[in-house]
């Protein structure tokens, strides 16, 4: 077995195991940590594909950004002794069903697609290429999604500020943890 096959199996196994652990653990911060492992292993897959840009973006945005935010909010709200009660069997069955249907759907789609094998060397994706295609209006350009996402982010930021401002007149809403 080639070394990259071994690496692939390793990453895939990590993704599967930690994904299952994420949804089955009863401790919320452990769930966040397992989620972190899933995201890091996914970026490992991207590194294997030689798509380093996406891998680094995955690390910065998901591992460094989103998981940190999740952990941060858990730190603010929950206590270490807090365990979630296990959900009822009805919920378990329906969520398992939803997960299995989703998995079947994506597996069928992937098997349906004819991957054409190529002997060409992996293309070097440099910064210039990414920047140009992000801003290009040609057939392969991504300027529309780029702008749509920026509008979405702006809306989210405005909304966050509005929510944060709401409690301003009544000063006693949240004690500031950091200054105690």
């Amino acid at each position, binding site marked *: 077995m080639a070394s990259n096959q071994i690496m692939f199996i390793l990453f895939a196994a990590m993704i599967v195991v930690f994904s299952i652990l994420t949804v089955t653990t009863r*401790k919320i*911060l*452990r769930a966040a*940590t397992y989620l*972190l492992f899933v995201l*890091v292993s996914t970026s490992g897959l991207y590194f294997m594909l030689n798509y*380093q*840009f996406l891998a*680094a*973006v995955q*690390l*910065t945005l998901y*591992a*460094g*950004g989103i*998981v*940190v935010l999740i*952990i*941060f909010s*858990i*730190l*603010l709200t929950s206590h*270490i*002794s807090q365990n979630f009660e296990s959900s009822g069997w009805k919920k378990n069955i329906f969520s398992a069903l939803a997960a299995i249907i989703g998995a079947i759907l994506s597996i069928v789609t992937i098997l349906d697609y004819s991957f054409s094998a190529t002997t060409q060397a992996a293309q*070097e*994706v*440099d*910064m*210039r290429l990414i920047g140009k295609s992000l801003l290009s209006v040609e057939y392969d350009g991504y300027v529309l999604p780029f702008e749509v996402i920026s509008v979405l982010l702006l809306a989210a930021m405005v909304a966050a500020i509005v929510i944060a401002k709401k409690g301003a007149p009544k000063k006693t809403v949240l004690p500031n*943890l*950091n*200054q*105690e």
Partner: protein
Amino acid sequence: MQNRLGPNRVGPFGIFQTIADLFKLLFKELIPIKDADSFLFNLAPFIVIIASFMAIAAIPFAKGLHAIDLNIGVLYVIAVSAMGVIGVLLAGWSSNNKYSLIGAMRSGAQIVSYELSVGLALITIVIMAGSMQLSVIVEAQRDGWFIFKGHIPAFIAFVIFLISSTAETNRGPFDLAEAESELTAGYHTEYSGIKFAFFFLAEYINMFIVASIAATVFLGGWMPFHVGHWGGFNQVMDFIPPFIWYIGKTFFVIFLMMWFKWTFPRLRIDQLLTLEWKYLLPINLVNVLIMAFIVLMGWHF
């Protein structure tokens, strides 16, 4: 800097003290914490140290002396070093201790906000170099370091990078996460033995990484000091091996950071966040624009 001798009994002038300290830490008892989340408690130091070592992989020590030369080197270093904060947060929470928790919260808020400044300061230089590959960035500084080539915006970026990277590595005057007068030791209060040493080591490795990124991106990495057309002077400079240049520059930046630590008093958390969000970030954004304008007009050297 400190006007004191330090430990001087182990070996000549105490140069083997660090090795003795290492053995001491290795053999010390690891105290398990009752009521702590032991899985996360044991995991946290490893996340911190792995993040630090992964960042080292991308640093060019000399020409070709490079573990991996990614074409997105700068982004990779930012991405990987961002992972360290997760270890700190986990450590603080799983210790089940209020000091640790507050230390971790402070550290999290601080690192997440100062990361932006670090990234933007590096982007300013990436605009000039036209590449994120660290070896290309160093090569582009053959005829002059970026801090001289990019004059005003590069210098502003360098100063911002120094300030925000000092904050990102939790060093004084930004060491609120472990402010010993308020929080005993912050997020690693409950750690002992080699696990504590991991946090300690990671902090110093991070300082080294940050200093070497500053040296690579702003001060020319392993490139010798060259001045325009002074052929003789340049040749003399070439005789000093690149590794020495690299180490020299890195230690210069580390010296600056130590200097900060012993000069300024510790900030309060609100002052710290004000500094970042109200001063450094706007300055930085404007600075990126200025740099892009200068590069477009060709006003750099």
